[in-house]
């Protein structure tokens, strides 16, 4: 990595290795599938083979009636409904097992229980489904206009939601001399975490509780959901999320499968488990990224953006998820499209359309990968229209630092940062001028070189007011952390967020170390268990290091005066004369360790002062930033792309990132998060796609057809940092978990379009497969026969 130094020590800013690495590198992680309970039964879901149809009947195989469940057999489970306060929002009703209708291929229709998965599948394939096929709604544009065929019969059309936004568009657009319009498309995808969804549930007689182990980002939210839709008290449920092999948004919502398996354990008081397989994931989990844009930019002669007009269509699939609702995606798309740019007129109409596909979920980057793709492609299109360098045009349009904090055209409040500087640094680190010279020379192997840039800002740790504006049924408020001093002077931190690759078992310990000074080896972070952690809405929206980190910091700060008070007593001095320094209390005539202080409180109370704080050496404290509209991380990415125009191959020759996430808690973790995100972004740009045929049949149900990027497709990415602390958060931390996945499609497409500019080729639809690239070149050849096309 580019800058191997971090701050010395183990506190905020130190590049310490992750505590969680040892168990994962040795294969000793503990995932749901690693848990085996005596007498455990395997659950398999029979899924709809048809995209849209009337479910007339289900015939259970003879002899297996008691182990096959249809909707009527699980009457105790309520249908999943996620209400929203957004105007125009229509409520979808999702039965845990299909009832009346099937609405996408992969929708659970029946549930089978057996000793092994194979036996359960044997039974499942004998179940007969009587489904009367209806025309499938596969294309969101057509579904939007269709009122005869409807995904939800009780609706008048197929619109989940329509958002209209206008801020000064008419007046600003009139000033423009350049008008550029583009149609931009992103394919549907699956999130493809290494570990799919996984649930084991059993009944604990001693606790009188339903214990649900599930691979989730948000154990507390899943408990709320299970209680709500099973109709039981929350106290009767304990949700444990052990090691989780990737969440990415897939695992921040309640799944019908979770309800069904929990219900089995609740009603039969035995252990049951369901482990999603890859084929189920690629079909029933094809649920993200699919946006269509028609964007028109209004600019002046120099390419200065004055106004933007957009129509966004989101293919929402069949159901709105609980608790985030389908409103999150259109809300984020509409609000985030203007990105890091300064302009004054904006109009946007966003349709979120119901189709016969799995319901849309928020995937890492939520809507911003799409909006960044659209915005950055249009930036380059403006540059081409005014015949200027896309770098220059982009640079001049970025919000300058002197305007920070800045209220942008979509009424987002950007807290801090120097956006143009990040872009300028990318230019320098990439050696843009050197590449331009090489490009002008041409490559001996006939490949064409292009350079692409993209800039974005990433709203992170946005809180109550923002989620309330998206109309959610469950809105984050204060996040809490419990910090406990152990009798031997160590710390135990309990948080309600979940760490599944983010490295928070390390970074939260670093935050505590910053305040208390205990070595991080002696700070244990406990998470993922509603039984022993304080409530949190969980890990999503790049929020956890700000929210849980803030709560940990504040809880530690709360303990300091208590340590000092006891320490001063032990040192026989006044508390005012003592101070806390690196896990010791220091007085005028000596020092006493946290261990001695903790020993006094827990084991030798006769040594305590009479007026000791009775709340002791444990504190649970809530936190949210002073301004809850978000701490905005930002970055610019730049890449050099070589296009092989004869076969349609693309190679990324260099990839540079300059990112600013405020105060970094651990630069190595920041880089790891960024790298993983970029790999996913490269997947979106070049490989991943869940295509459907006209009948709504998914065409990529294995990795044979669904192409993931692998190690050889990820270039050596160079990451550089600047630090503009947020004025609103503790320590100035900003969240950054999603950012890496936002810019790559924009960067890569801009690079390819730059490479192919002389051929008159412009591509704007993910994924950029060799075939699509060659087709675009072929089309350009037919359109401009005079040009020299490969």
């Amino acid at each position: 990595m580019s800058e191997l130094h971090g701050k010395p020590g183990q506190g905020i800013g130190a590049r310490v290795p992750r505590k969680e690495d040892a168990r994962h590198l040795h294969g000793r992680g503990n995932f749901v599938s690693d848990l085996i309970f005596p007498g455990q039964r395997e659950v398999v879901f029979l899924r709809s083979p048809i995209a849209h149809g009337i479910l007339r009947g289900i015939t259970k195989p003879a002899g297996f009636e008691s182990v096959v469940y249809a909707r009527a057999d699980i009457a105790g489970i309520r249908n999943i409904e996620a209400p929203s306060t957004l105007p125009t929002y229509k409520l979808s009703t999702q039965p845990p097992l299909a009832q009346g209708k099937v609405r996408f291929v992969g929708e659970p229709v029946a549930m089978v229980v057996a000793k092994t998965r194979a036996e359960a599948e044997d039974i499942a394939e004998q179940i007969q489904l009587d489904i009367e096929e209806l025309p499938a709604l596969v294309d969101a544009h057509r579904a939007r206009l269709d009122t005869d065929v409807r995904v939800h019969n009780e609706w008048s059309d197929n619109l989940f939601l329509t958002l209209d936004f206008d801020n000064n568009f008419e007046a600003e657009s009139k000033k423009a001399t350049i008008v550029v319009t583009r149609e931009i498309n992103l394919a549907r995808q699956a999130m493809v975490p290494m570990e799919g969804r996984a649930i084991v549930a059993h009944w604990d007689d001693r606790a009188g509780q339903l214990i649900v182990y599930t691979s989730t980002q948000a154990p507390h939210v899943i408990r709320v959901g299970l209680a709500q839709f099973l109709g039981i008290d929350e106290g009767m449920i304990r949700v444990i999320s052990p090691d989780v092999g990737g969440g990415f948004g897939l695992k921040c919502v309640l799944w019908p499968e979770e309800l069904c398996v929990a219900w089995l354990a609740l009603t039969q008081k035995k252990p049951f488990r369901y482990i999603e397989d890859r084929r189920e994931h690629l079909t029933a989990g094809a649920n993200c990224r699919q946006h269509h844009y028609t964007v028109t930019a209004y600019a002046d002669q120099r390419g200065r953006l004055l106004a933007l007009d957009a129509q966004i269509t989101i293919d929402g699939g069949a159901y709105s998820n609980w608790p985030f609702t389908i409103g999150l995606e259109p809300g984020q798309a509409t609000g985030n499209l203007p990105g890091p740019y300064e302009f004054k007129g904006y109009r946007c109409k966003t349709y979120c359309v119901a189709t016969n596909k799995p319901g849309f979920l928020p995937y890492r980057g939520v809507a911003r990968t799409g909006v960044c793709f659209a915005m950055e492609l249009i930036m380059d299109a403006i540059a081409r229209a005014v015949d200027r360098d896309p770098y220059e045009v982009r640079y001049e349009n970025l919000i300058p630092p002197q305007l920070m904090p800045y209220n942008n055209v979509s009424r987002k409040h950007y807290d801090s940062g120097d956006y143009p500087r990040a872009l300028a640094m990318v230019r320098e680190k990439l050696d843009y001028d050197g590449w331009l010279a090489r490009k002008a020379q041409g490559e001996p192997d006939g490949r064409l070189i292009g350079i692409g840039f993209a800039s974005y800002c990433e709203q992170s740790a946005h809180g109550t007011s923002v989620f309330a504006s998206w109309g959610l049924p469950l809105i984050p408020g204060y996040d809490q952390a419990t910090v406990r001093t152990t009798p031997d002077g160590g710390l135990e931190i309990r948080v309600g967020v979940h760490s599944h690759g983010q490295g928070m078992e390390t970074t939260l310990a670093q935050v505590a170390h910053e305040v208390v000074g205990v070595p991080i080896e002696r700070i244990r972070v406990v998470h993922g268990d509603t039984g022993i952690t304080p409530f949190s809405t969980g890990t999503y929206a790049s929020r956890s290091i700000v929210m849980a980190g803030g709560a940990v910091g504040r809880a530690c700060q709360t303990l300091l005066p208590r340590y000092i008070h006891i320490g001063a007593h032990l040192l026989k001095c006044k508390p005012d004369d003592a101070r806390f320094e690196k896990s010791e209390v220091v007085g005028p005539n000596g020092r006493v360790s946290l261990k001695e202080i903790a020993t006094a409180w827990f084991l030798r109370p006769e040594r305590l002062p009479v007026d000791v704080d009775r709340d002791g050496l444990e504190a649970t404290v809530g936190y949210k930033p002073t301004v809850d509209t978000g701490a905005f991380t930002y970055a610019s990415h730049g890449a050099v792309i070589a296009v092989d125009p004869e076969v349609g191959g693309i190679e990324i020759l260099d990839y540079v990132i300059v990112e600013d996430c405020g105060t970094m808690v651990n630069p190595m973790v920041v880089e790891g998060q960024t790298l993983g995100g970029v790999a996913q972004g490269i997947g979106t740009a070049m490989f991943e796609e869940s295509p459907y045929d006209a009948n709504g049949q998914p065409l990529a149900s294995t990795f044979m057809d669904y192409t993931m990027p692998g190690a050889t497709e990820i270039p050596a990415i160079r990451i550089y940092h600047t630090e503009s602390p947020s004025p609103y958060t503790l320590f100035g931390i900003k969240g950054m978990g999603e950012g890496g996945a936002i810019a790559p499609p924009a960067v890569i497409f801009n690079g390819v379009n730059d490479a192919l500019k002389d051929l008159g080729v412009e591509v704007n639809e993910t994924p950029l497969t060799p075939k699509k690239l060659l087709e675009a070149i072929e089309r350009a050849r037919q359109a401009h026969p005079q040009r020299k096309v490969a």
Partner: protein
Amino acid sequence: MKSAKFDYTRPHDVRAAIHALADALGEAKFLAGGQSLGPMLNLRLTRPKLLVDVSRIEALRSIDVVNGSIRIGAAVTHAEIEDAGASLARNAMLPAVAREIAYRTIRNRGTIGGSLAHADPAADWPLALAALDAVIIVNGPAGQRSIPSARFMLAAFTTQLADDEMIEAIIVPELSPSARWGTYKFCKRTGEFPDAAAMAVFDPARRIARVYVGALSGAPVPLDALARGIAQQGAVALTATAVDRAIAMAVPELDAVGRKMHAATTMRAVQQALAS
């Protein structure tokens, strides 16, 4: 997905394997590396009652050089061919082809016989062995016979192999010291089956000139006229127009994009051969 129920047997010689298959009356399948059969079993696209594992039959496991030919047992893995550089000095194309198949974990298990029997149109061995003029030895209840590799594969996933026959070995001629060859395939991702592939072998001492295109909808297709032209005239016969025309004639069903991709691939394979 889990496979439907099946039985498993691991015979120790070819004869026992053939018997085991025949005894199951069409309900059995040979299992070699399982790299193609495994997924098909799990997706329940195939449901044999019995798997006859041939992967450890000694007679199918060796590479031997005999009178100017190389005999590769059907159960030899891609990785073993990749690593057999020394014993394959007289046909260095074999390890070169093996090295480009999928990635090492697949090559550690996948076998040359399994690849030929499976007959994926984008697979490397059907193409390479056709270009190399290999002969495939098959064996069954009716006895042993040999089939020229260029005629072995009939269509996608379809070969001359009878239901009760097994592939026993592949006989590949050694190349002359003056032989030149080239292989090129274009995969959208490392380890993926290719979108386009071509291989060329020019061995003037043995009067051989072959250019084959693969990764089509069916079996690999020879470009004989182009190969002859190049053998006679050298690089001057290798023009973009000549290659494009050869592909268009040999594979008329290709669309413009497919033709372009295969033409570029063929051009690169032949260029590589001529430059070697």
